[in-house]
């Protein structure tokens, strides 16, 4: 398939893991292959007869030659394919996309997109996702970009396939195509009272077509399948245990792998005695550069063999979380992503009220319930790896680089996995499993322990945020200065109208390995901004909702604030002693969110309880309301952990709370009733929704705690040890 890159969009600076070098350096001894490239005839030999439609991305090769919107493929498949679809002779519609399913329910919503435009039943659609041999190149499933990009691409491909089917029928019946109707997987000729199923039209065909631009798509107001709560595709396999997650991969003759972990981050190996492990029958020990690992016939033997290795490490003193924020401030690099307008100093000097605050955010872990896992198989110098990743093509390249292979000699398959939250962008487990399998001469599966997942994955960046602001006597924002140190630049800009502003992101060489997390720094930046806005509202003696609306022009953002407030009963609910109300919201990645929360604080016990949450969300035309609600509620619950109690503790290059008994994540008892208002904007393009619903929760809770107690909490997590008087 094509390996040309998709049109670039700017990747946020806090996706540090994208730029990180390889984790291990091996001797390069692999063979060289070449990327798979098929001609049309070979293609149909593999796929079986039927109709195929390829979506060619911008500057597709053939498009320039033909100058047409769509064109038939005579010989070679086009380059730069975004997605493709095959309608087989038995009625199965197979759709190929490099995006992956990680619990965000995209397999279902993309199937809806295809069914919608193909005018076929949802059950006829099968998605092949994230298989580097079969699916077109894709940068990865991150940044809430699947719905705004892949949904449209698949709809275009499906619409073109539908047109092709209609043309085949028109030709066969010798009627004008415009007289025919495609619906429910059939083409009908209403005038002649005849109809034919798609599979019959596809039979005997070897018709391949490329499309370059979009056919006109069905507007959301006329959707029949998109916009409905289609049940989760393959749902039954999950409740019966039949679904095979990456960690469930079983290969014949497979061994179990373990990696010897250094004593601390950055430690170097000074002595190694693996004789005891090596002596065990069936155990393979690999020592290659800075990598030490074993493969053994069972998990238990693997664990014991690793424990039997004697290693000495040279470690160096490193900072602990107690010095973290001081370190981040002192080690900041010059500002990046600087944005400035007006005169902040003059506006501050003449403001009626000024407010200056510093917020902090700890490192947190994603804790995907399925840890990183990979199973590797070598055959004839080629490597296949089943692994849980949000970026199968990046992992393929990582493997190719590690073993000196051409990317075409490596296949990465990504079975729908046990979540990621931005944490599975890199291929360490895949590379380690492949290295062990190569040495053992047998397939090897490697699943990280929870402790490894807590320690050797990357963390959501910690950060320090400083805000200085001023308002006029009537509550109009006059000056806004916002500095984020290290945590990231996502949603760093304020959505409020301010004539004079300076906004700056300061990167820091992080003491811990850090990278993407669901919502990136939008959570930290919204927490600081929206808590600060609450403080300003109080300084202006205005209601927090009225203060926000006064300083907003964006109608969609105003609408979500109003909708959340109305459903919550903002300003109307009577307040019990110890209870407080708060709100927070904003705009990011095409989504508008506002969240209101009620908390109850017991100052004698220190217990802080979130009583209820109301979130209004607008992500354009809603593709699957039930799936969207699931995401919004889940994002809020995940957000509770980072807001209230989650923090990674570390000292001298070691994580000191790498267990679920020490690192608290939200559980049943932490979960309040969470209501959702969906604002379904059928006039707007659909945006991704997996991330942004998370960002309103922390400030809403923080502001509610202030409302209840008069205490302004400026650190995430806010109450790891409660809030005693």
């Amino acid at each position, binding site marked *: 398939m094509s390996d040309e890159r998709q049109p670039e969009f700017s990747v946020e600076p806090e996706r540090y893991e994208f730029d990180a070098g390889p984790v291990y350096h091996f001797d390069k001894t692999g063979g060289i292959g070449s990327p798979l490239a098929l001609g049309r005839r070979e293609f149909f030999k593999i796929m079986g007869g039927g109709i195929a439609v390829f979506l060619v991305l911008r500057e597709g090769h053939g498009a320039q030659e033909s100058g047409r919107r769509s064109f038939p493929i005579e010989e070679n498949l086009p380059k730069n394919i975004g997605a493709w679809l095959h309608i087989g002779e038995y009625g199965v519609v197979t759709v190929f996309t490099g995006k992956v399913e990680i619990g965000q329910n995209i397999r279902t919503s993309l199937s809806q997109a295809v069914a919608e435009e193909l005018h076929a039943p949802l059950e006829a659609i099968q998605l092949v996702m994230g298989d580097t041999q079969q699916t077109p190149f894709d940068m990865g499933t991150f940044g809430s970009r699947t719905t705004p990009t892949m949904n449209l691409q698949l709809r275009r491909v499906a619409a073109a396939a539908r047109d092709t089917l209609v043309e085949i029928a028109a030709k066969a019946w010798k009627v004008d195509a415009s007289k025919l109707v495609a619906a429910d997987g059939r083409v009908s000729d209403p005038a002649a009272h005849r109809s034919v199923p798609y599979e019959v039209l596809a039979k005997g065909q070897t018709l391949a077509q490329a499309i370059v631009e979009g056919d006109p798509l069905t507007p959301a107001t006329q959707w029949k399948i998109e916009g409905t709560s289609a049940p989760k595709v393959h*749902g039954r396999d*999950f409740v019966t245990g039949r679904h095979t*997650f990456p960690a469930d991969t079983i290969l014949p003759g497979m061994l179990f792998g373990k990696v010897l972990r250094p004593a601390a981050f950055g430690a170097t190996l000074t002595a190694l005695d693996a004789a005891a492990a090596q002596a065990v029958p069936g155990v393979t020990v690999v020592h290659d550069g800075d990598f030490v690992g074993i493969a053994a016939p*069972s998990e238990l033997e693997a664990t014991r063999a690793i424990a039997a290795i004697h290693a000495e490490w040279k470690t160096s003193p490193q900072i602990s979380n107690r010095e973290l924020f001081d370190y981040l401030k002192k080690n900041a690099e010059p500002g990046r992503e600087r944005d400035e307008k007006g005169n902040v100093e003059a506006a501050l000097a003449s403001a009626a009220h000024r407010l200056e605050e510093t917020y902090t955010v700890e490192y947190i872990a*994603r804790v995907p319930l399925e*840890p990183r896992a990979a199973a590797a198989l070598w055959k004839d110098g080629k490597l296949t790896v089943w692994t849980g990743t949000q970026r199968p093509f990046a992992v393929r390249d990582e493997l190719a680089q590690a073993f000196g292979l051409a990317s075409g000699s490596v296949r990465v398959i990504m079975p729908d996995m046990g*979540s990621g939250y931005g944490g599975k962008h890199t291929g360490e487990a895949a590379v380690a499993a492949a290295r062990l399998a190569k040495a053992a001469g047998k397939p090897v599966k490697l699943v990280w322990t929870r402790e490894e997942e807590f320690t050797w994955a990357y963390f959501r960046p910690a950060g320090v945020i400083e805000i200085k602001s001023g308002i006029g006597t009537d509550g109009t924002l006059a000056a806004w200065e916002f500095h984020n140190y290290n945590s990231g630049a996502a949603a760093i800009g304020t959505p409020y109208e301010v004539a004079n502003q300076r906004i700056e992101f300061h990167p820091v060489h992080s003491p811990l390995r850090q990278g993407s997390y669901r919502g990136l720094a939008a959570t930290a930046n919204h927490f600081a901004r929206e808590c600060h806005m609450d403080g300003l509202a109080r300084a202006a003696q205005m209601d927090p909702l009225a203060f926000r609306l006064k300083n907003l022009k964006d109608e969609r953002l105003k609408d979500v604030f109003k909708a959340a407030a109305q459903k919550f009963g903002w300003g109307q609910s009577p307040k019990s002693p110890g209870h407080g109300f708060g709100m927070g919201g904003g705009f990011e990645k095409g989504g508008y969110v506002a969240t209101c929360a009620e908390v109850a604080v017991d100052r004698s016990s220190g217990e802080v309880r979130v009583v209820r949450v109301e979130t209004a969300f607008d992500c354009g035309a809603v593709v699957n309301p039930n799936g969207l609600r*699931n995401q919004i509620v889940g*994002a809020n619950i*995940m957000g509770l952990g980072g807001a209230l109690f989650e923090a990674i503790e570390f000292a001298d290059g070691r994580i000191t709370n790498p267990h679920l008994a020490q690192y608290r994540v939200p559980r049943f008892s932490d979960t309040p009733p969470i209501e959702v208002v969906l604002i379904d904007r059928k006039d707007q393009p659909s945006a991704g929704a997996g991330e942004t619903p998370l960002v309103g929760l922390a400030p809403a809770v923080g502001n509610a705690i202030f409302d209840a107690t008069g205490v302004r909490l400026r650190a995430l997590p806010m109450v790891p040890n409660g809030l005693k008087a």
Partner: protein
Amino acid sequence: MRPLFYMPKVTELHINGRTYALQADADESLLSVLRDRLGLTGSKYGCGEGQCGACTVLIDGNPRRSCITKVGAVGAKSITTIEGLEKNGRLHPLQQAFLDAEALQCGYCTSGMILTAVALLDSQPNPSEDQIRHFMQGNICRCGTYPRIVEAIQRAAAASKKS
């Protein structure tokens, strides 16, 4: 010389109404044996420390963390895993309720959630919401599907009352 890793063997287990013959170290975790030796991968590894509930199975009807249960300790007791709940193509009421309420996102916690809930409804056919939360507290869903899981358990309880 005594082998480095010598342990007594477990040769038989009773799972989902079947007897399995096997050769496993008594010290192996029940979870590893189920997954790696018997191919019953519906039970999941989440933490290996009994903290998340993804590996939950029923042993003589009681919910147990298979990751910290040594296979040598099971003996002749009967084990139920997620694979054993569906009977003749019919889902267990809790499986059906999880599906109907769409009480899952990535689905990795689902097996453990369902088996824990089976144990709950066996002991308390009509639990209150608080009782459900209390009983399920040891099971983690990182996707945050807790409210729907509570709803699914309530649905299953209501469905069994009717039938």
